């Protein structure tokens, strides 16, 4: 019977494929550059070497995974909690993480692609995200709204009046 690939090996395979695509794209773009006079290496060689090394390494990784082995896992994680097994003492909330990402995407789109002002967009964003992450009781809804107004106005004041920065 055909055995299913483990989650770890599937992730390894996708990582290697993504790296092959990136290295191929960089190699192709770099190869179109003209050589520079007086410079033995020129602007294209170094990116092409790195892309070649990454591409070859990724092909080796694909072969290792397809031969039935995983690539191993980093034990010096700098970001906690991604890809961990489900804990026994509380429930993971991947749906909430997706919602937070979607809201952040919408917030950035509103700030950079539309004329929506920073203050009101930020207040709406903090309120919506805070509410989504909270326990969604009436009390928490009120707290989320208050924090949104205070943080939104505070940040706007801080960066426009004190740091004199342009905000998106």
């Amino acid at each position, binding site marked *: 019977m055909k055995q299913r690939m483990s989650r770890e090996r599937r992730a390894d395979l996708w990582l290697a494929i993504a790296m092959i695509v990136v290295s191929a794209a960089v190699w192709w773009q*770099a190869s179109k550059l003209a050589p520079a006079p007086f410079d033995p290496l020129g602007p294209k060689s170094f*990116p092409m070497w790195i892309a070649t090394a990454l591409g070859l390494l990724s092909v080796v990784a694909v072969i290792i995974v397809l031969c039935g082995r995983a690539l191993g896992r980093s034990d010096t994680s*700098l970001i906690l909690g991604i890809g961990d097994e489900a804990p026994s003492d509380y429930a993971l909330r991947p749906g909430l993480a997706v919602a937070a990402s979607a809201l952040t995407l919408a917030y*950035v789109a509103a700030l950079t692609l539309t004329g929506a002002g920073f203050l009101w967009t930020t207040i709406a964003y903090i309120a919506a995200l*805070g509410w989504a992450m*909270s326990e969604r009781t009436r009390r928490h809804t009120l707290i989320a709204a208050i924090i949104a107004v205070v*943080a939104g106005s505070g940040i706007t004041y801080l960066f426009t009046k004190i740091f004199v920065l342009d905000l998106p």
Partner: protein
Amino acid sequence: MSLFDAFLYLSVPSHFLILVGGVLLGIAIGVMPGITAGMLLALVLPFTYYMTSTNAVVLLVSLFIGGVSGGLVTATLMRIPGEPNAVMTCLDGYPMAKAGRPGRALGLGNAGSIVGGAISWGALVLLAPPLAKIAVVLGPWENFALVVMALVLISSLSGGSFIKGLMAGLFGMLIAMPGVDETSGMLRLNFGFHELDGGLDQLPVIIGVFALSQVIADTMHIGQQNMEHVRANMRGIMISLRDYVTHGWNMVRSSVIGVWIGILPGVGATIASIIAYTTAKNLSKTPEMFGKGSEEAIVAAESANNATTGGTLIPLLTLGIPGGLADSILLGALVIHNLQPGPLLYINNPGIVNAIMAAHLTAHVVMFVLMSVGVLLFARLALLHRAWIFPTVLVFCVIGAYALNNRGFDVWVMLAFGAIGFGLEYAKAPLAPFVIGLVLAPLAEKELRSGLMSSGGTLMPLVQRPIALGFLVVAVLMFIWPLWRDWRRRPKADAAVS
């Protein structure tokens, strides 16, 4: 500015306030599970642009020290590492706190932290200047070989998977390639997007990878904060001189481990505390107490993780090679302020080097005092609902990415790299080589091209110059060693499976 002058500089109230504010904010962030010191540094970095370079490094160093130390509180009271490096402290800090001695557990951890910090400061002051004197004579070939060695070293030491470490490092290097080629002035790898003409700024990439992806990961774990916790109290928070004597050798040994692990690029405080903990257990007269509230264990873990702070600064100040994430960001800060990291920093800007050293020790002392008197307040911060913090942190991510160039495009870059960081971490690829690759690629290319121009296009000086050859030999050995280790392990693993 001499080292003494740097301490005097920090005694000026406004400068001291920056340092205290940095340590306070660092501890507060370190206490909160999920918000890491690296993330805080990435977020604060764009705003240091508006400060003098000395104040900027003072702020960043104090944030770093505070952040590394704050994880102790959450680890002890909630069994959650507020910072990844506090994971070993959880194993014994929490059982001791649960047995009715939370103050004692925090006091021991705090004592270990100050001793670890002080010893690592001593190592930094003693080792960095002579190393910088040696490093300043290195030419382009040696510098190129050094970067190659650092990348291979970090990939092989960052644990688990060598091949993934190398892939992450090379990927980081490629991310640094687009934009105007400095040597020829030609535009490259913009893929038809004019926004890429200036290249990908490091800052949005770092904020995306370390801050955005961490918040999204923490959102998945938001239910964790409703877990059981121990109430903090002050009883036993100040440990006696006798305790320092009893645990003295353990503190020194663990600190030395921390310093040396810190010097190795990318290995970091987590591994240092694991090694110090294991060593303390192996040498202990009561190893059976480890995991059940052992005093030795808490002291070992905390001494080691604070000792890495000085160790990681040594390669940064002497060679321009960051030892870890915090140093990569510190390196970014130096670049933003038009300071050249590496041995030339000693010659051109000795004041900055001395400010970093003075801030390192002063921040440890301030941290010790703040942790001793403010632990109850910090313990309350750990219980703050993440829903009230994360949205504001995400707004800071957006402003931080935007602020440096006032470009909406950088915010999109930050979002994209948030997703990429999440993906890399999901695939368990180490992120440290990615950052080091990103930061060091321009240096590697510049040095190689400068060497080739002076040698008429031949690579032979790489093997003809003894120091460059030495670095390359180490790189080759570090390349072969993990492969050989995996090859040796495989028959045993296969036998175990069959």
